[in-house]
Protein backbone atom coordinates (compact mmCIF):
# COMPACT_ATOMS: atom_id res chain seq x y z
CA UNK A 1 0.00 0.00 0.00
CA UNK A 2 1.31 3.41 -0.96
CA UNK A 3 1.89 5.61 2.08
CA UNK A 4 3.08 9.19 2.23
CA UNK A 5 6.27 8.59 4.20
CA UNK A 6 7.35 12.23 4.58
CA UNK A 7 3.94 13.01 6.06
CA UNK A 8 4.23 9.92 8.25
CA UNK A 9 7.51 11.16 9.71
CA UNK A 10 6.40 14.76 10.12
CA UNK A 11 3.19 13.79 11.88
CA UNK A 12 4.90 11.25 14.09
CA UNK A 13 6.92 14.09 15.56
CA UNK A 14 3.75 16.14 16.11
CA UNK A 15 2.06 13.18 17.78
CA UNK A 16 5.04 12.51 20.03
CA UNK A 17 5.09 16.18 21.02
CA UNK A 18 1.46 15.81 22.13
CA UNK A 19 2.28 12.93 24.48
CA UNK A 20 2.60 15.28 27.51
CA UNK A 21 -1.04 16.37 27.04
CA UNK A 22 -2.21 12.77 27.10
CA UNK A 23 -0.08 12.00 30.15
CA UNK A 24 -1.26 15.14 31.94
CA UNK A 25 -4.89 14.16 31.39
CA UNK A 26 -4.18 10.70 32.80
CA UNK A 27 -2.08 11.70 35.80
CA UNK A 28 -4.28 14.61 36.87
CA UNK A 29 -7.40 12.43 36.64
CA UNK A 30 -5.95 9.58 38.68
CA UNK A 31 -4.48 11.85 41.37
CA UNK A 32 -7.62 13.97 41.64
CA UNK A 33 -9.82 10.87 41.77
CA UNK A 34 -7.79 8.91 44.35
CA UNK A 35 -9.11 10.51 47.59
CA UNK A 36 -12.73 10.34 46.41
CA UNK A 37 -12.26 6.76 45.26
CA UNK A 38 -10.83 5.75 48.61
CA UNK A 39 -13.80 7.36 50.33
CA UNK A 40 -16.28 5.54 48.09
CA UNK A 41 -14.47 2.25 48.57
CA UNK A 42 -14.60 2.64 52.36
CA UNK A 43 -18.29 3.57 52.26
CA UNK A 44 -19.06 0.53 50.15
CA UNK A 45 -17.11 -1.80 52.42
CA UNK A 46 -18.54 -0.49 55.68
CA UNK A 47 -22.10 0.06 54.51
CA UNK A 48 -24.15 2.98 55.79
CA UNK A 49 -27.75 3.48 54.55
CA UNK A 50 -28.44 6.37 52.20
CA UNK A 51 -24.78 7.25 51.58
CA UNK A 52 -24.07 3.71 50.43
CA UNK A 53 -27.01 3.77 48.01
CA UNK A 54 -25.87 7.13 46.64
CA UNK A 55 -22.28 6.07 45.92
CA UNK A 56 -23.40 2.69 44.56
CA UNK A 57 -25.74 4.48 42.16
CA UNK A 58 -22.89 6.73 41.06
CA UNK A 59 -20.52 3.82 40.42
CA UNK A 60 -23.23 1.91 38.55
CA UNK A 61 -23.98 4.98 36.44
CA UNK A 62 -20.34 5.44 35.41
CA UNK A 63 -19.74 1.75 34.80
CA UNK A 64 -22.99 1.30 32.93
CA UNK A 65 -22.60 4.07 30.36
CA UNK A 66 -20.07 4.54 27.56
CA UNK A 67 -17.38 7.13 28.30
CA UNK A 68 -18.19 8.94 25.06
CA UNK A 69 -21.70 9.53 26.42
CA UNK A 70 -20.26 10.79 29.70
CA UNK A 71 -18.06 13.21 27.76
CA UNK A 72 -20.97 14.48 25.66
CA UNK A 73 -23.16 14.77 28.75
CA UNK A 74 -20.65 16.69 30.89
CA UNK A 75 -19.53 18.83 27.98
CA UNK A 76 -23.09 19.94 27.28
CA UNK A 77 -23.98 20.36 30.95
CA UNK A 78 -20.91 21.76 32.70
CA UNK A 79 -20.33 25.06 30.81
CA UNK A 80 -23.92 26.20 31.32
CA UNK A 81 -23.91 25.01 34.91
CA UNK A 82 -20.69 26.91 35.58
CA UNK A 83 -22.10 30.00 33.92
CA UNK A 84 -25.25 29.83 36.04
CA UNK A 85 -23.12 29.24 39.13
CA UNK A 86 -20.84 32.16 38.35
CA UNK A 87 -23.82 34.42 37.68
CA UNK A 88 -25.42 33.28 40.93
CA UNK A 89 -22.31 34.23 42.86
CA UNK A 90 -22.19 37.59 41.09
CA UNK A 91 -18.87 36.80 39.40
CA UNK A 92 -18.24 38.07 35.91
CA UNK A 93 -16.22 35.13 34.59
CA UNK A 94 -16.41 34.20 30.94
CA UNK A 95 -16.72 30.41 31.30
CA UNK A 96 -16.77 29.90 27.55
CA UNK A 97 -13.22 31.29 27.34
CA UNK A 98 -12.06 28.58 29.76
CA UNK A 99 -9.47 26.18 28.36
CA UNK A 100 -11.39 23.03 27.30
CA UNK A 101 -8.73 20.91 28.98
CA UNK A 102 -10.42 21.69 32.32
CA UNK A 103 -13.62 20.06 31.10
CA UNK A 104 -11.54 17.06 30.05
CA UNK A 105 -10.00 16.90 33.52
CA UNK A 106 -13.50 17.03 35.00
CA UNK A 107 -14.89 14.23 32.81
CA UNK A 108 -11.97 11.86 33.22
CA UNK A 109 -11.76 12.51 36.96
CA UNK A 110 -15.48 11.81 37.42
CA UNK A 111 -15.05 8.64 35.38
CA UNK A 112 -11.91 7.52 37.21
CA UNK A 113 -13.44 8.09 40.65
CA UNK A 114 -15.90 5.28 40.04
CA UNK A 115 -13.51 2.85 38.37
CA UNK A 116 -10.71 3.46 40.88
CA UNK A 117 -13.12 2.98 43.78
CA UNK A 118 -13.77 -0.55 42.48
CA UNK A 119 -10.03 -1.24 42.43
CA UNK A 120 -9.65 0.05 45.99
CA UNK A 121 -12.72 -1.83 47.13
CA UNK A 122 -11.48 -5.19 45.92
CA UNK A 123 -7.97 -4.47 47.28
CA UNK A 124 -9.20 -3.40 50.72
CA UNK A 125 -11.74 -6.21 50.82
CA UNK A 126 -8.97 -8.76 50.36
CA UNK A 127 -7.17 -7.73 53.54
CA UNK A 128 -7.94 -9.97 56.47
CA UNK A 129 -9.89 -8.14 59.24
CA UNK A 130 -7.31 -9.52 61.66
CA UNK A 131 -4.78 -7.03 60.32
CA UNK A 132 -6.85 -4.09 61.53
CA UNK A 133 -7.59 -5.76 64.86
CA UNK A 134 -3.92 -6.57 65.41
CA UNK A 135 -2.90 -3.01 64.57
CA UNK A 136 -5.45 -1.59 67.02
CA UNK A 137 -4.33 -4.06 69.67
CA UNK A 138 -0.75 -2.96 69.19
CA UNK A 139 -1.82 0.57 70.12
CA UNK A 140 -2.07 2.23 66.70
CA UNK A 141 -4.90 4.67 66.14
CA UNK A 142 -7.30 3.93 63.31
CA UNK A 143 -5.76 6.47 60.87
CA UNK A 144 -2.30 5.10 61.71
CA UNK A 145 -3.49 1.55 61.13
CA UNK A 146 -4.80 2.57 57.71
CA UNK A 147 -1.65 4.49 56.78
CA UNK A 148 0.93 1.95 57.95
CA UNK A 149 -0.83 -1.42 57.87
CA UNK A 150 -3.88 -1.53 55.63
CA UNK A 151 -3.09 0.77 52.71
CA UNK A 152 0.45 -0.53 51.97
CA UNK A 153 -0.89 -4.07 51.80
CA UNK A 154 -3.88 -3.00 49.72
CA UNK A 155 -1.53 -1.25 47.33
CA UNK A 156 0.26 -4.50 46.58
CA UNK A 157 -2.86 -6.36 45.54
CA UNK A 158 -4.21 -3.27 43.73
CA UNK A 159 -1.14 -2.87 41.53
CA UNK A 160 -2.18 -5.06 38.54
CA UNK A 161 -5.68 -3.52 38.48
CA UNK A 162 -4.18 -0.06 38.83
CA UNK A 163 -2.02 -0.74 35.79
CA UNK A 164 -5.06 -1.87 33.80
CA UNK A 165 -7.00 1.18 34.87
CA UNK A 166 -4.18 3.53 33.85
CA UNK A 167 -3.74 1.91 30.46
CA UNK A 168 -7.50 2.06 29.86
CA UNK A 169 -7.56 5.70 30.93
CA UNK A 170 -4.73 6.55 28.53
CA UNK A 171 -6.74 4.93 25.77
CA UNK A 172 -9.87 6.72 26.98
CA UNK A 173 -8.19 10.13 26.76
CA UNK A 174 -8.07 9.63 23.00
CA UNK A 175 -11.68 10.85 23.10
CA UNK A 176 -10.62 14.23 24.49
CA UNK A 177 -10.71 15.53 20.92
CA UNK A 178 -14.50 15.66 21.31
CA UNK A 179 -13.84 18.53 23.74
CA UNK A 180 -11.32 20.14 21.33
CA UNK A 181 -8.37 19.22 23.58
CA UNK A 182 -5.16 18.91 21.54
CA UNK A 183 -3.99 15.46 22.61
CA UNK A 184 -2.25 12.87 20.38
CA UNK A 185 -5.40 11.88 18.50
CA UNK A 186 -6.58 15.43 17.92
CA UNK A 187 -3.16 16.60 16.74
CA UNK A 188 -2.95 13.83 14.15
CA UNK A 189 -6.55 14.34 13.06
CA UNK A 190 -5.94 18.03 12.40
CA UNK A 191 -2.68 17.35 10.54
CA UNK A 192 -4.45 14.75 8.40
CA UNK A 193 -7.39 16.94 7.49
CA UNK A 194 -5.29 19.20 5.21
CA UNK A 195 -4.36 16.47 2.74
CA UNK A 196 -6.72 13.62 3.68
CA UNK A 197 -3.75 11.56 4.96
CA UNK A 198 -5.86 9.83 7.60
CA UNK A 199 -4.25 6.40 7.46
CA UNK A 200 -0.76 7.78 7.96
CA UNK A 201 -1.95 10.02 10.78
CA UNK A 202 -3.74 7.23 12.62
CA UNK A 203 -0.79 4.86 12.20
CA UNK A 204 1.31 7.53 13.92
CA UNK A 205 -1.25 7.77 16.72
CA UNK A 206 -1.20 3.99 17.02
CA UNK A 207 2.60 4.05 17.40
CA UNK A 208 2.31 6.84 19.96
CA UNK A 209 -0.18 4.95 22.10
CA UNK A 210 1.77 1.69 21.94
CA UNK A 211 4.86 3.64 23.05
CA UNK A 212 3.11 5.39 25.95
CA UNK A 213 1.32 2.25 27.12
CA UNK A 214 4.51 0.19 26.97
CA UNK A 215 6.41 2.71 29.09
CA UNK A 216 3.55 2.91 31.59
CA UNK A 217 3.34 -0.87 31.85
CA UNK A 218 7.10 -1.09 32.41
CA UNK A 219 6.86 1.54 35.15
CA UNK A 220 4.04 -0.39 36.83
CA UNK A 221 6.02 -3.59 36.57
CA UNK A 222 8.90 -1.85 38.32
CA UNK A 223 6.60 -0.31 40.94
CA UNK A 224 4.99 -3.68 41.56
CA UNK A 225 8.36 -5.16 42.45
CA UNK A 226 9.08 -2.14 44.63
CA UNK A 227 5.87 -2.33 46.69
CA UNK A 228 6.25 -6.11 46.79
CA UNK A 229 8.15 -5.68 50.05
CA UNK A 230 4.84 -4.93 51.79
CA UNK A 231 3.58 -8.31 50.70
CA UNK A 232 3.02 -10.81 53.48
CA UNK A 233 4.93 -14.06 53.17
CA UNK A 234 1.67 -15.98 53.36
CA UNK A 235 0.24 -14.07 50.41
CA UNK A 236 3.29 -14.80 48.30
CA UNK A 237 2.43 -18.47 48.22
CA UNK A 238 -1.23 -17.94 47.28
Amino acid at each position, binding site marked *: *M*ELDYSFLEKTLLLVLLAIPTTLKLTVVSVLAAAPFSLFIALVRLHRRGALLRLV*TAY*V*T*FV*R*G*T*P*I*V*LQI*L*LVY*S*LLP*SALKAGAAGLGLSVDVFALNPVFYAYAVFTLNTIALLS*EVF*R*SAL*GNIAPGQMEAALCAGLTKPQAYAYIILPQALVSAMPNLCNLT*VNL*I*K*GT*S*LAFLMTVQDM*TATAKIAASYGYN*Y*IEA*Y*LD*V*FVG*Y*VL*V*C*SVVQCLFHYAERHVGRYRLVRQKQG
Partner: protein
Amino acid sequence: MRPFDPYFIWTVIPALLPFLSVTLAVAAGTLFFGSLLGGLLAAGQVGGGRMVRRLAQTYIYLVRCTPPIVMLFIVFYGLPKFFMEAFSLDINAWDKIVYVWISFTLLFAAPISEVMRSSYLAVDHGQYEAAVSIGLSPRQAFFHIMLSQAAVVALPNFGNAVISLMKEGSLAYTIGLVDLIGKGQLIISVHYGARALETYLALTLIYLVLTLGVEQLFSFLEHHFSGLPPSDAAWHPVKPGGEV
Protein backbone atom coordinates in the same frame (compact mmCIF):
# COMPACT_ATOMS: atom_id res chain seq x y z
CA MET B 1 -30.18 28.29 25.48
CA ARG B 2 -33.64 26.93 26.10
CA PRO B 3 -34.45 25.85 29.65
CA PHE B 4 -33.98 22.23 30.60
CA ASP B 5 -37.08 20.25 29.75
CA PRO B 6 -37.35 16.85 31.49
CA TYR B 7 -40.43 15.98 29.46
CA PHE B 8 -38.33 15.99 26.28
CA ILE B 9 -36.39 12.99 27.64
CA TRP B 10 -39.59 10.90 27.50
CA THR B 11 -40.57 12.12 24.07
CA VAL B 12 -37.14 11.47 22.57
CA ILE B 13 -36.84 7.87 23.79
CA PRO B 14 -39.40 6.47 21.28
CA ALA B 15 -37.47 8.23 18.49
CA LEU B 16 -34.22 6.64 19.63
CA LEU B 17 -35.41 3.11 20.35
CA PRO B 18 -35.69 1.92 16.70
CA PHE B 19 -31.92 2.41 16.47
CA LEU B 20 -31.34 0.09 19.39
CA SER B 21 -31.33 -2.70 16.81
CA VAL B 22 -28.24 -1.15 15.11
CA THR B 23 -26.41 -0.93 18.43
CA LEU B 24 -27.34 -4.53 19.23
CA ALA B 25 -26.32 -5.65 15.73
CA VAL B 26 -22.88 -4.06 16.26
CA ALA B 27 -22.52 -5.93 19.55
CA ALA B 28 -23.88 -9.26 18.24
CA GLY B 29 -21.73 -9.29 15.09
CA THR B 30 -18.61 -8.35 17.02
CA LEU B 31 -19.40 -10.96 19.64
CA PHE B 32 -19.66 -13.66 16.98
CA PHE B 33 -16.61 -12.81 14.87
CA GLY B 34 -14.58 -11.63 17.86
CA SER B 35 -15.16 -14.93 19.66
CA LEU B 36 -14.02 -16.84 16.56
CA LEU B 37 -10.82 -14.80 16.25
CA GLY B 38 -10.35 -14.87 20.02
CA GLY B 39 -10.76 -18.65 19.99
CA LEU B 40 -8.06 -18.93 17.33
CA LEU B 41 -5.74 -16.67 19.34
CA ALA B 42 -6.37 -18.67 22.51
CA ALA B 43 -5.79 -21.96 20.68
CA GLY B 44 -2.56 -20.52 19.27
CA GLN B 45 -1.40 -19.53 22.72
CA VAL B 46 -2.29 -22.81 24.40
CA GLY B 47 -1.51 -25.32 21.69
CA GLY B 48 0.61 -23.53 19.09
CA GLY B 49 4.34 -23.69 18.54
CA ARG B 50 6.77 -21.06 19.73
CA MET B 51 6.29 -18.85 16.65
CA VAL B 52 2.49 -18.95 16.79
CA ARG B 53 2.51 -18.27 20.51
CA ARG B 54 4.81 -15.27 20.09
CA LEU B 55 2.62 -13.91 17.27
CA ALA B 56 -0.57 -14.26 19.29
CA GLN B 57 1.03 -12.59 22.32
CA THR B 58 2.32 -9.68 20.23
CA TYR B 59 -1.11 -9.19 18.69
CA ILE B 60 -2.80 -9.17 22.09
CA TYR B 61 -0.21 -6.76 23.47
CA LEU B 62 -0.58 -4.32 20.58
CA VAL B 63 -4.36 -4.37 20.68
CA ARG B 64 -4.32 -3.78 24.42
CA CYS B 65 -2.50 -0.51 23.73
CA THR B 66 -4.83 0.65 20.94
CA PRO B 67 -7.65 3.07 21.70
CA PRO B 68 -10.87 1.88 20.03
CA ILE B 69 -11.24 5.12 18.12
CA VAL B 70 -7.78 4.75 16.56
CA MET B 71 -8.54 1.18 15.45
CA LEU B 72 -11.88 2.32 14.06
CA PHE B 73 -10.30 5.09 11.99
CA ILE B 74 -7.38 2.97 10.76
CA VAL B 75 -9.85 0.35 9.50
CA PHE B 76 -12.30 2.90 8.12
CA TYR B 77 -9.71 4.86 6.15
CA GLY B 78 -7.10 2.17 5.59
CA LEU B 79 -9.16 -0.82 4.47
CA PRO B 80 -10.76 0.74 1.35
CA LYS B 81 -7.35 2.04 0.26
CA PHE B 82 -5.77 -1.34 0.88
CA PHE B 83 -8.48 -3.21 -1.06
CA MET B 84 -8.24 -0.69 -3.88
CA GLU B 85 -4.51 -1.09 -4.32
CA ALA B 86 -4.21 -4.79 -3.53
CA PHE B 87 -7.24 -6.16 -5.40
CA SER B 88 -8.51 -3.11 -7.36
CA LEU B 89 -11.72 -3.54 -5.43
CA ASP B 90 -13.82 -0.55 -4.47
CA ILE B 91 -15.33 -1.21 -1.06
CA ASN B 92 -16.31 2.36 -0.27
CA ALA B 93 -19.92 1.42 -0.88
CA TRP B 94 -19.91 -1.18 1.87
CA ASP B 95 -22.22 -0.49 4.72
CA LYS B 96 -20.48 1.32 7.58
CA ILE B 97 -21.47 -1.43 9.99
CA VAL B 98 -19.03 -3.74 8.20
CA TYR B 99 -16.12 -1.46 9.12
CA VAL B 100 -17.43 -1.30 12.67
CA TRP B 101 -17.64 -5.09 12.84
CA ILE B 102 -14.10 -5.48 11.50
CA SER B 103 -12.57 -2.91 13.88
CA PHE B 104 -14.30 -4.17 16.99
CA THR B 105 -13.66 -7.80 16.06
CA LEU B 106 -9.95 -7.01 15.91
CA LEU B 107 -10.20 -5.22 19.26
CA PHE B 108 -12.53 -7.62 21.06
CA ALA B 109 -10.58 -10.74 20.06
CA ALA B 110 -7.68 -9.83 22.36
CA PRO B 111 -9.46 -9.67 25.72
CA ILE B 112 -11.76 -12.53 24.81
CA SER B 113 -8.82 -14.76 23.93
CA GLU B 114 -7.36 -14.05 27.35
CA VAL B 115 -10.69 -14.97 28.97
CA MET B 116 -10.82 -18.21 26.97
CA ARG B 117 -7.20 -19.11 27.63
CA SER B 118 -7.37 -18.55 31.38
CA SER B 119 -10.66 -20.44 31.72
CA TYR B 120 -9.32 -23.36 29.67
CA LEU B 121 -6.22 -23.52 31.84
CA ALA B 122 -8.41 -23.34 34.95
CA VAL B 123 -9.97 -26.71 34.11
CA ASP B 124 -7.91 -29.54 35.58
CA HIS B 125 -6.08 -31.39 32.83
CA GLY B 126 -6.86 -34.64 34.64
CA GLN B 127 -10.41 -34.20 33.34
CA TYR B 128 -9.14 -34.60 29.80
CA GLU B 129 -7.03 -37.61 30.68
CA ALA B 130 -9.93 -39.23 32.52
CA ALA B 131 -12.22 -38.65 29.52
CA VAL B 132 -9.73 -40.17 27.09
CA SER B 133 -9.08 -43.11 29.41
CA ILE B 134 -12.76 -44.10 29.44
CA GLY B 135 -12.77 -44.22 25.65
CA LEU B 136 -13.70 -40.74 24.39
CA SER B 137 -11.78 -39.54 21.37
CA PRO B 138 -9.50 -36.52 21.99
CA ARG B 139 -11.96 -34.40 20.02
CA GLN B 140 -14.94 -35.59 22.08
CA ALA B 141 -12.97 -35.11 25.30
CA PHE B 142 -12.17 -31.54 24.26
CA PHE B 143 -15.70 -30.55 23.25
CA HIS B 144 -17.78 -32.48 25.78
CA ILE B 145 -15.54 -32.37 28.84
CA MET B 146 -13.04 -29.50 28.64
CA LEU B 147 -14.91 -26.86 26.67
CA SER B 148 -18.17 -27.18 28.59
CA GLN B 149 -16.40 -26.78 31.92
CA ALA B 150 -14.21 -23.94 30.67
CA ALA B 151 -17.32 -22.11 29.41
CA VAL B 152 -18.78 -22.02 32.92
CA VAL B 153 -15.51 -20.72 34.37
CA ALA B 154 -15.34 -18.06 31.65
CA LEU B 155 -18.88 -16.72 32.15
CA PRO B 156 -18.24 -13.82 34.59
CA ASN B 157 -15.24 -12.47 32.67
CA PHE B 158 -17.02 -13.04 29.38
CA GLY B 159 -19.94 -10.99 30.68
CA ASN B 160 -17.61 -8.16 31.64
CA ALA B 161 -16.03 -8.25 28.19
CA VAL B 162 -19.46 -8.10 26.52
CA ILE B 163 -20.46 -5.10 28.64
CA SER B 164 -17.28 -3.22 27.81
CA LEU B 165 -17.77 -4.15 24.16
CA MET B 166 -21.27 -2.65 24.20
CA LYS B 167 -19.91 0.54 25.70
CA GLU B 168 -17.02 0.79 23.25
CA GLY B 169 -19.42 0.06 20.39
CA SER B 170 -20.98 3.46 21.03
CA LEU B 171 -17.99 4.98 19.20
CA ALA B 172 -19.37 3.67 15.91
CA TYR B 173 -21.19 6.97 15.42
CA THR B 174 -17.83 8.72 14.87
CA ILE B 175 -17.54 7.13 11.40
CA GLY B 176 -21.14 7.97 10.60
CA LEU B 177 -23.03 4.82 11.56
CA VAL B 178 -26.49 5.80 12.74
CA ASP B 179 -26.83 3.77 15.91
CA LEU B 180 -28.37 4.99 19.20
CA ILE B 181 -25.83 7.77 19.70
CA GLY B 182 -25.71 8.59 15.98
CA LYS B 183 -29.48 9.06 15.98
CA GLY B 184 -29.18 11.13 19.14
CA GLN B 185 -26.69 13.45 17.42
CA LEU B 186 -29.06 13.76 14.45
CA ILE B 187 -31.95 14.69 16.76
CA ILE B 188 -29.77 17.30 18.46
CA SER B 189 -28.77 18.86 15.15
CA VAL B 190 -32.43 19.00 14.07
CA HIS B 191 -33.01 21.11 17.18
CA TYR B 192 -29.94 23.25 16.39
CA GLY B 193 -28.11 21.86 19.43
CA ALA B 194 -30.77 23.02 21.85
CA ARG B 195 -31.88 19.65 23.20
CA ALA B 196 -28.43 18.14 23.76
CA LEU B 197 -28.65 17.54 27.49
CA GLU B 198 -32.09 15.92 27.36
CA THR B 199 -31.08 13.65 24.47
CA TYR B 200 -27.88 12.56 26.15
CA LEU B 201 -29.80 11.82 29.35
CA ALA B 202 -32.24 9.67 27.38
CA LEU B 203 -29.31 7.80 25.79
CA THR B 204 -27.78 7.35 29.24
CA LEU B 205 -30.98 5.76 30.48
CA ILE B 206 -31.12 3.38 27.53
CA TYR B 207 -27.49 2.34 27.96
CA LEU B 208 -27.95 1.82 31.70
CA VAL B 209 -30.89 -0.49 31.07
CA LEU B 210 -28.87 -2.35 28.42
CA THR B 211 -25.72 -2.89 30.48
CA LEU B 212 -27.61 -3.76 33.66
CA GLY B 213 -29.73 -6.18 31.63
CA VAL B 214 -26.69 -7.91 30.17
CA GLU B 215 -25.16 -8.11 33.63
CA GLN B 216 -28.31 -9.70 35.05
CA LEU B 217 -28.39 -12.16 32.17
CA PHE B 218 -24.83 -13.27 32.81
CA SER B 219 -25.31 -13.54 36.55
CA PHE B 220 -28.39 -15.70 35.87
CA LEU B 221 -26.42 -17.90 33.45
CA GLU B 222 -23.56 -18.14 35.93
CA HIS B 223 -25.81 -19.42 38.69
CA HIS B 224 -27.76 -21.60 36.31
CA PHE B 225 -24.66 -23.42 35.08
CA SER B 226 -22.73 -23.50 38.33
CA GLY B 227 -25.65 -25.34 39.93
CA LEU B 228 -26.15 -22.79 42.69
CA PRO B 229 -29.61 -21.33 43.30
CA PRO B 230 -29.84 -17.62 42.36
CA SER B 231 -30.53 -16.80 46.02
CA ASP B 232 -26.85 -17.55 46.65
CA ALA B 233 -26.06 -14.23 44.99
CA ALA B 234 -26.31 -12.63 48.41
CA TRP B 235 -23.70 -15.03 49.66
CA HIS B 236 -21.06 -13.43 47.40
CA PRO B 237 -20.99 -9.73 48.28
CA VAL B 238 -18.15 -9.18 45.78
CA LYS B 239 -18.45 -11.33 42.71
CA PRO B 240 -15.31 -12.85 41.18
CA GLY B 241 -15.42 -10.46 38.25
CA GLY B 242 -15.67 -7.48 40.58
CA GLU B 243 -18.82 -6.38 38.77
CA VAL B 244 -21.18 -4.01 40.60
